[in-house]
């Protein structure tokens, strides 16, 4: 039955087809594919499809319920918008990678068993890396390497957790878990890494600003929000998430105030928004889960819109730093307007989408009388109006005139932004259609007098503070600098750690000789080459040990793993490997 066809399979097949099509058909194909998938999904009744037995396990490729359906809808909608935005990019690598990446996210959302989920999870990790690599700059290559290492580590955590779960007699079907065993904690950490929960977050702000202008749009939608979906599915009501989420809303806003690169500001802002969702999942009431899901839905649209605006600026001017930009409204008025619609939406102004979704999470915290959490979430809301609501549009399109006179981007990019902006406003004005597809029946009215006036006061008196601070000269100036974050530990600390071990194990003479002969580059290269194997061993050896693989068989497996990494054959599943090979070929050909 075609109506139950998993969209993931459609996207993966499409990714293989894209490089073969002539340019003119390619563009139509990339738009038609997600639209067709959307049509199919709309006509698919809730239920289980494409299910079969494999060994003793029941594999489910398509399990449509109210939670997975709303995420599948938004992933398909943003695919349509993202491919429209990327329509004129003449780079098959990016198109194929984006299709595999979107397919992976749809697979994670719609599959019903842990095996399929893990395979799709790795598809996402591998394909998304190529959206960063495709920028083809040294900085992007370095960021992509760090990105894939971190995500392989996260994937291994998830994999180890799944294996332990099954070994302990747990179900293969994905369902609610309790944080009471090593298995569920490993799964939790694997998901948390993709959700960018601190301190597992720095990969996001490190990699997304280095991605291609169009690739960042896809990146902003899929990895973190598929993790939000999975967290909803497995750990709803896990209390640790309440605090983790609240902290996650707050700490990125300080970085966002200071950061110079607008796409990095947006990356920190993305973490802040996912923080609200994590908090909602932790609260776990029907209102909180509805709030989380609707916020994910709205967030994907306005965050993509903001990344599209930043991507348009980057495409047309070649710049993305606040210090280099300013005054662009003069010749890019449409981009400026669309950017401000995104800003108003993320700031949760009444009549914009963030208002009707975020407030459900904050209300849920209020209903549970979580006083401190409630104050933290409201504080973070003021932080959002600062960096995403004011700073991004102000320093890009207004502020001091940079002298740049770039025009609005080509029609397809403008239309993609326009459609996203239309959704942001549409949902804000008529939230009911969104409320109707949420997991639980909605009993919530966003537009009450108290709520509208309260929210406007909160935001606009924050804006008043901005006006006073900028005129007094106290507002932190935009400067060309970077800000240290937790990635220091693996970017600097990793090297320092490697050097320390090297030094202590080889003796002072040998180490200093190597130091003089090979220099720092040698150390970094060796670290990059050996880190994956070492990290994987750290995760897998205890797992094997628990599976009673000891002594000689254990040594054999360790060596096989080392050999695998030495040859670059990473254990990410055959499918993901095939995708990787195809993308590498495209990367080298272009």
């Amino acid at each position, binding site marked *: 039955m075609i109506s139950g066809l998993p969209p993931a399979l459609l996207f993966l097949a499409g990714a293989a087809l894209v490089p073969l099509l002539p340019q003119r058909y390619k563009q139509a194909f990339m738009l038609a594919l997600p639209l067709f998938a959307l049509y199919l999904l709309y006509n698919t009744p809730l239920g289980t499809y494409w299910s079969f037995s494999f060994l003793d396990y029941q594999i489910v490729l398509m399990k449509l319920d109210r939670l997975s359906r709303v995420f599948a809808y938004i992933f398909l909608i943003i695919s349509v918008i993202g491919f429209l935005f990327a329509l004129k990019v003449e780079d098959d690598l990016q198109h194929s990678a984006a299709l595999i990446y979107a397919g992976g996210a749809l697979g994670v959302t719609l599959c019903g068993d842990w095996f399929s989920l893990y395979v799709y999870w790795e598809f996402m990790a591998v394909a998304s890396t190529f959206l960063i690599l495709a920028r083809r700059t040294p900085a992007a290559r370095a960021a992509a390497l760090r990105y894939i290492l971190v995500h392989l580590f996260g994937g291994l955590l998830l994999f180890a957790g799944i294996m332990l779960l099954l070994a302990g007699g747990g179900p293969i079907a994905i369902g609610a878990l309790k944080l009471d065993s090593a298995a569920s904690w490993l799964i939790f950490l694997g998901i948390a890494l993709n959700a960018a929960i601190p301190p597992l977050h720095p990969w996001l702000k490190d990699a997304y600003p280095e991605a291609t202008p169009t690739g960042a749009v896809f990146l902003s939608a899929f990895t973190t929000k598929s993790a939000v979906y999975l967290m909803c599915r497995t750990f709803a009501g896990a209390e640790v998430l309440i605090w983790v989420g609240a902290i996650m809303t707050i700490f990125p*806003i*300080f970085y966002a*105030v*200071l950061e110079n690169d607008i796409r990095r500001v947006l990356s920190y802002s993305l973490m802040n928004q996912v923080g609200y969702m994590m908090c909602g999942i932790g609260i776990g009431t029907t209102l909180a889960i509805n709030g989380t899901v609707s916020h994910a839905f709205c967030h994907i649209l306005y965050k993509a819109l903001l990344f599209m605006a930043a991507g348009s600026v980057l495409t047309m001017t070649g710049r993305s730093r606040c210090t280099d930009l300013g005054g662009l*409204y*003069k*010749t890019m*008025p449409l981009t400026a307007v669309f950017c401000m619609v995104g800003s108003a939406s993320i700031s949760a102004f009444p009549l914009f989408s963030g208002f009707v979704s975020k407030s459900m999470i904050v*209300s849920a915290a*209020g*209903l549970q*009388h979580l*006083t401190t959490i*409630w104050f933290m979430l*409201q*504080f973070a809301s*003021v*932080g959002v*109006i*600062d960096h995403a609501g004011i700073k991004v549009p102000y320093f890009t399109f*207004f502020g001091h005139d940079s002298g740049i*006179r770039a*025009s609005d981007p080509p029609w397809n990019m403008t239309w993609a932004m326009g459609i996203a902006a239309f959704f942001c406003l549409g949902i804000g004005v008529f939230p009911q259609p969104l409320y109707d597809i949420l997991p639980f029946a909605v009993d919530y009215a966003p537009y*009450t*007098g*108290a709520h509208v*006036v*309260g*929210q*406007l*006061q*909160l*935001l*606009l*008196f*924050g*804006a*008043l*503070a*901005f*006006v006073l*601070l900028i005129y007094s000269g*106290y*507002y*932190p100036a935009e*400067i*060309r*600098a*970077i*800000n*240290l*974050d937790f990635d220091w530990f693996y*970017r*600097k600390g990793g090297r320092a750690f490697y050097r320390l071990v090297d030094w202590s194990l080889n003796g002072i003479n040998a180490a200093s000789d190597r130091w003089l002969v090979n220099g720092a580059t040698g150390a970094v290269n060796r670290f990059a080459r050996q880190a994956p194997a070492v990290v994987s061993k750290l995760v897998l050896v205890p797992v094997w040990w628990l599976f009673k693989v000891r002594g000689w068989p254990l040594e054999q497996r360790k060596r096989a793993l080392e050999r695998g990494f030495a040859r670059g054959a990473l254990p990410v599943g055959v499918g993901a490997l095939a995708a990787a090979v195809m993308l590498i070929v495209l990367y080298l050909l272009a």
Partner: protein
Amino acid sequence: MRELKIFDKAVNVKRLLMCLYIFLAVLLVADFFIHKHGHFPWENAPEFYAVYGFLCYLVLIVLAKALRRIIKRREDYYD
């Protein structure tokens, strides 16, 4: 290429800010005429959100400036 220059004139920026101030005043007045139903008692206090929003913004900027002293590095720090 056609160029917009609306904010090149200082008077237009002033008008925009005046709109903001007037709207803020309206919000302060409106606060007394709405039916409040907060989850916490302080939500029902007059002008709570205005005060909290303004103070939060100041605290955020002061703390961020302090943080910058600790975490700021040259752009080539990792190279």
